[in-house]
C-alpha cells in the first residue's frame, strides 16, 4: 500500500484547525458509556512536554491564523488551575504573532469554582459541560466511582457560570432512554438557561464495546427524537441552538461536497499527556485495537509533525482511512453531506477503517440529515397565513 500512498490519500493540503491536548487521562467520575481505557491513571502532562508540543505544532506550515485548542481528558479540571495558568502563559509565549489560539474545556463541571470561572473569563476560554438532561437521565450514567449521581454538582457549576455572565454549551449523550423524552430535554435546557447543546450518541468505541442504540428499531426512535426536536427548535426560534441542526443546515448550504476533518491527516492533531502524537479521530489517542499496535504516530520529544507522514504506521492507517472514504463515496447517497464518516467509529464498530456504514453514521449523519431535510420541506409546503387568518394559496 505504501508505494502508492499519494494516489490514495487526499493530498489537498489540510489546515491544522484543532489541537486536542490531554492534560491527563484521569477522570474523577466513571460514566457508564466512557470510551477511555486509561481513565484511572493520574499521569499528567508536564510543562516540558507541553512546551515541546507547542514547538512542534507552531512550527508546522499546516497552522495558519487560528487554532482551536481543546483541553480534553479524562477530566481536564482535575489538573490544578495553577498548571493551566503556567500552560496558557507558555503557549502564549510560544505562539507566533500571526496565530490566534482559542481554548476550549470540555468538563463534567464537578470541580468548577470561582477561581476556574475567573480563569475562563480572563482567558476567554469556551466551556462545554457534559450534562445528559434532567437528573434521572443524567445520573443513570454519569456517576462517581462510588455510584453517586453528579447532576446536582454540574448544575451548580452551570449556575455559577451563569451568575458571572459566562457563556457555555452543553453536550448531551443520548442513550435509548433519552430518545423517548425530547420534550423533557428541550424544557430542561430552556428552563435552565442553556442556549447551546450538542447531542452525542452512546457510541461503540474504545473501552465501551456496547451501546443501547444498536438495532433498527432504535433508529426509528432516534429519527422520531430528531424530528420532534427539530420542530421544538423551529417553533421557538432562538431559544436553543442545537449543534446537529446547525451543522446539518450548514452542510446543506455548502456549495462543495463536505469533507470530514477526522478523515484529513493533521486537520486534527491530538497530543497525549506523555507527548504521544496522533491524528484523525481524537478518540484514537490511547486507544487499543487488535489489528493495530496503537495509534501513536510519534512523540513530541522526538518527532516534528512533518516526520509523521513518513512513518509506516501512519501510511498504513491513513491509507485504510482514505479507502474507507472512497468506499463511502462510491456507495453512500449521503456522502456529499458527510465526507466519509468517523474513522474511530468505523474501526470500533466493524474492525476496519476502510468500512462504510456504521451505527454512528446511520444515526448522527443519515438520520439527522433526513429529518432536517424533511423538517424544512414540511415548512416550505405549509401555506402562509394571511393577516386575516386565511391561508395564502388556499381558496
Amino acid at each position, binding site marked *: 500500500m505504501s508505494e502508492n500512498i499519494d494516489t490514495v490519500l487526499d493530498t489537498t493540503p489540510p489546515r491544522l484547525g484543532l489541537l486536542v491536548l490531554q492534560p491527563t487521562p484521569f477522570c474523577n467520575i466513571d460514566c457508564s458509556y466512557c470510551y477511555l481505557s486509561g481513565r484511572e491513571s493520574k499521569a499528567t502532562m508536564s510543562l516540558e512536554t507541553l512546551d515541546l508540543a507547542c514547538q512542534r505544532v507552531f512550527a508546522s506550515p499546516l497552522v495558519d491564523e487560528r487554532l482551536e485548542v481543546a483541553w480534553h481528558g479524562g477530566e481536564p479540571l482535575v489538573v490544578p488551575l495553577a498548571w493551566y495558568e503556567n500552560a496558557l502563559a507558555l503557549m502564549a509565549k510560544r505562539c507566533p504573532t500571526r496565530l490566534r489560539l482559542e481554548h*476550549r474545556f470540555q468538563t463534567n463541571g464537578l470541580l468548577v469554582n470561582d477561581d476556574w470561572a475567573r480563569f475562563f473569563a480572563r482567558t476567554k476560554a469556551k466551556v462545554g459541560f457534559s450534562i445528559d438532561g434532567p437528573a434521572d437521565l443524567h445520573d443513570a450514567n454519569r456517576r462517581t466511582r462510588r455510584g453517586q449521581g453528579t447532576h446536582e454538582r454540574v448544575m451548580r457549576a452551570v449556575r455559577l457560570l451563569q451568575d458571572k455572565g459566562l457563556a457555555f454549551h452543553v453536550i448531551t449523550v443520548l442513550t435509548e432512554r433519552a430518545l423517548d423524552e425530547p420534550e423533557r430535554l428541550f424544557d430542561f435546557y430552556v428552563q435552565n438557561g442553556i442556549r447551546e447543546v450538542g447531542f452525542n450518541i452512546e457510541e461503540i468505541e474504545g473501552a465501551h464495546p456496547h451501546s443501547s442504540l444498536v438495532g433498527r428499531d432504535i433508529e426509528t426512535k432516534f429519527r422520531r427524537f430528531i424530528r420532534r426536536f427539530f420542530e421544538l427548535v423551529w417553533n421557538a426560534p432562538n431559544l436553543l441552538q442545537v449543534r446537529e441542526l446547525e451543522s446539518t*443546515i450548514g452542510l446543506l448550504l455548502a456549495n*462543495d461536497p463536505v469533507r470530514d476533518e477526522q478523515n484529513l491527516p493533521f486537520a486534527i492533531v491530538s497530543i497525549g499527556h506523555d507527548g504521544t502524537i496522533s491524528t484523525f479521530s481524537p478518540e484514537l489517542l490511547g486507544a487499543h485495537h487488535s489489528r493495530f499496535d496503537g495509534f501513536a504516530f510519534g512523540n513530541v520529544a522526538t518527532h516534528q509533525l512533518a516526520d509523521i507522514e513518513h512513518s509506516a504506521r501512519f501510511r498504513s492507517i491513513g491509507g485504510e482511512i482514505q479507502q474507507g472514504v472512497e468506499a463511502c463515496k462510491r456507495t453512500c447517497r449521503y456522502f456529499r453531506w458527510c465526507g466519509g464518516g468517523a474513522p474511530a467509529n468505523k474501526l470500533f464498530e466493524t474492525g476496519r477503517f476502510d468500512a462504510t456504514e456504521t451505527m454512528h453514521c446511520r444515526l448522527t449523519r443519515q438520520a439527522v440529515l433526513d429529518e432536517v431535510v424533511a423538517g424544512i420541506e414540511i415548512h*416550505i409546503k405549509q401555506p402562509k397565513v394571511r393577516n386575516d387568518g386565511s391561508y395564502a394559496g388556499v381558496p
Partner: protein
Amino acid sequence: MSNQSDRRASLAQGSTIVSLAAVIACTFASDALASQSAAPPGEHELAARVATIVERIRLVDPTLLRNVPPELKVAQWRNR
C-alpha cells in the same frame, strides 16, 4: 427584506443566540413562494430535495448561502 442585514450580521458573527435553524425558519416564514412549488417529501432523491431547499433559499435571500460560517461547511469532531 427589512431584516436581511440583521440576519447576515448574525450569521457572520456565529452568534450563540441566533441560530441557522431560526434564520431559515424566518426566511420561509416570509417567503412569498412558500406555498407554490415545493416537491412532496420522498418524491425526489435526496440530492434533488436538498437542491430544492437551497434554491428556495437562494431565491429568498442569497446572502444566506454566502455567509454560512466556514466551520459549518466541514463535518467536525463532535466532542467540543
